[in-house]
């Protein structure tokens, strides 16, 4: 019973959170949870290739940042009343910026995937990093769009005439996207595509023998993952009203990896646990001591050395012990 009801319970709890947080006088909690949901989407999209598909990408921030900048640049041209490349008008309509961000991230994922997936193992890790770093360097030297300082989205995006500046409105938008994304991801995992992807991870040769072309499936997964990260990046831009190159940095890719590992590689709910733990820990430690990095480092080290399969793995073994 509880396993089926758990997701529903979580959604209800998240939906009630703004009221509860208000009642407890903890309104920043709402923003923290919103960030957790955004990072959970990004980490889950990485988990799709990393955990389900066995492709260790160290450049996932590229897609997160591209989604981030897509929203930022469209708003920039909207505020400026100019057009991108001379023919694409800017907009602040979330119904356009959000899909545009996903599309841009997906296109780049297709391009990068086409090249990067020719390699594997350590080389794949490094080539994805290389492409991400190139995109990072490109945006940092892009003077027109703020360069290193990023773009301020002063007036926020709108959705059906509502301003997404309102914290509760954007919270529910993020929640809706997150629920939709995880529902979709669940379907993907259980689909024949998901099974083939898992098959490729476990034994690529066998899949080839079965007449399956692994490259096409891996590429498809890579593009889907890129689109997921792009969606998360777009949400982050709308939420923070700010697009900046730090969303493209290799350290951001590292953070996504840490969230996935922390939560449990290949576990469906792992990225949610991972993102929540990482952000809450960070927030809590940083408000407690300025030397938070020391404690963060020790805790992460403990988790990786002492647990198998991250938090999701720990929960599984805990559950197994009481059966």
């Amino acid at each position, binding site marked *: 019973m509880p396993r089926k009801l758990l997701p529903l319970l979580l959604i209800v709890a998240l939906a009630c959170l703004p009221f509860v947080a208000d009642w*407890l006088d*903890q309104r920043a909690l709402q923003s*923290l949870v919103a960030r957790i949901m955004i990072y959970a989407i990004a980490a889950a999209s990485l988990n799709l290739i990393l955990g389900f598909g066995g492709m260790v990408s160290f450049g996932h921030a590229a897609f997160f940042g591209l989604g981030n900048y897509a929203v930022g640049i469209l708003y920039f041209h909207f505020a400026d009343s100019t057009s991108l490349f001379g023919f694409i008008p800017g907009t602040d309509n979330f119904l356009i910026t959000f899909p545009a961000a996903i599309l841009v991230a997906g296109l780049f994922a297709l391009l990068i995937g086409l090249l990067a997936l020719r390699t594997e193992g350590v080389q794949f890790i490094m080539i994805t990093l290389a492409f991400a770093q190139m995109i990072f360097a490109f945006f940092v030297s892009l*003077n027109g769009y703020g360069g290193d300082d*990023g773009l301020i989205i002063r007036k926020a995006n709108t959705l059906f005439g509502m301003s997404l500046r309102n914290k509760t409105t954007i919270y529910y938008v993020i929640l809706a996207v997150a629920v939709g994304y995880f529902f979709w991801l669940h379907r993907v995992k259980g689909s024949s595509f998901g099974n083939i992807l898992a098959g490729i991870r476990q034994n690529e040769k066998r899949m080839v023998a079965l007449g399956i072309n692994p490259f096409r499936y891996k590429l498809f997964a890579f593009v889907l993952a890129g689109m997921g990260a792009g969606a998360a990046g777009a949400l982050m831009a709308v939420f923070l009203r*700010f697009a900046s190159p*730090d969303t493209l940095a290799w350290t951001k890719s590292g953070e996504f990896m840490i969230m996935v590992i922390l939560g449990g590689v290949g576990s469906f709910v792992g990225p949610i646990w991972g993102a929540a733990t990482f952000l809450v820990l*960070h927030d809590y430690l940083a408000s407690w001591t300025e030397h*938070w990095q020391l404690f963060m480092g020790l805790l992460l080290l403990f988790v990786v050395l002492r647990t198998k399969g991250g938090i999701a793995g720990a929960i599984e073994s805990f559950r197994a012990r009481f059966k």
Partner: protein
Amino acid sequence: MTIHKYALALALTLGTTLASHAQDPVEIGMITTLSGPAGYLGQDIRDGLQLAIDAEGGKLGGVDVELVVEDDARKPANARQIAERFVFDDDIKLVTGIIFSNIAGAVVPDVVDSDAIYISPNAAPSTFAGENCNANYFVTSWQNDSLHEASGIAAKELGYKNAFVLAPNYQAGKDAVTGFKRMFGGEIVGEIYTQLDQTDYSAEMAQIRAAKPDVVFQFHPGGLGIAFLRQYQQAGLLAEIPMVLSEPSSDAVILNALGDAAIGLKTTAHWSPDFDNAASKEMMAAWKKAYPDRPLTYYATQGYDTGLAIASALKQTGGIDDLDAFKDALRKADFQSVRGNFSFGQNQHPVQDWYLLDVVAGEDGKPTTKTVRKLVENYGDVYAKDCKL
């Protein structure tokens, strides 16, 4: 059910800090950069402000205050989360501390739009200085451009006809070059933007030598500046081509790290340790007592001045229950700044004097700055006229 409710509350509370702060002291929220190579900048601003508070025995302007500090790790999203917690959960009405312009860009709009006051002790990008100025936004340091405009004025007055300019490739770097050029007016024989994480500047040194300019202007804050100046010296350029610096490339820590290499440099600033005013002397004595091993940087003085500014307003209002009254009081800038003349302009950015300084050997043998002359008096910034406050 009640047990569940409390368990929930407990779990939620774990995520953030406890919100139940008592009424009494006025809380000042400081979001600053304490980790990474730029960590000393945030540390100095924090300690400077704390020094002003300690000087009054935990008060500013006779009102009990408490400084709440958090490290943003130089990440805009982190800073934003801290700001929300400060403003919404802890009901902090005074926020300060940000070092970098890009972090200010992510945080300032949100803070000032939430009926809280942001007082910048450092970064002041042009974004918030002109048309988009805000009644809740004050700056006690300088407007980014004016830092480097002072150097442009200095280079012009020193009679240099052409210059070679270098800065890191980010907004503050470009602002620096723009500001310098605006006031210098001479020919620019070379303009190079370096990478932000660059450690080796030998390629640039060779280009400077080949261009043979009258003067070099470079803006490289913190560790970048140390590396740049060291390599400038090692390349033998220090004796050949004079250099005019702006303040961030010649703070006390950088000068200290350069040792003898720094002596003979020309720099421009709004404060120097040899200033002959009571406020500056008082601060220098207090700093020396509290941190005998650390050189006093201008960052620390900006933190200190921020404290004095807040004190001047609190003294008039007795608290921050009436924010409008507090802002009116703050705008008067009724305090003795360590830099002498100080008032707020139309856009609530400083109007102050800029000086030409020589780097000389101090009494302890370590390099320090000596005031040569005043370059400009009551100097604001070029954006103030667009501000309709």
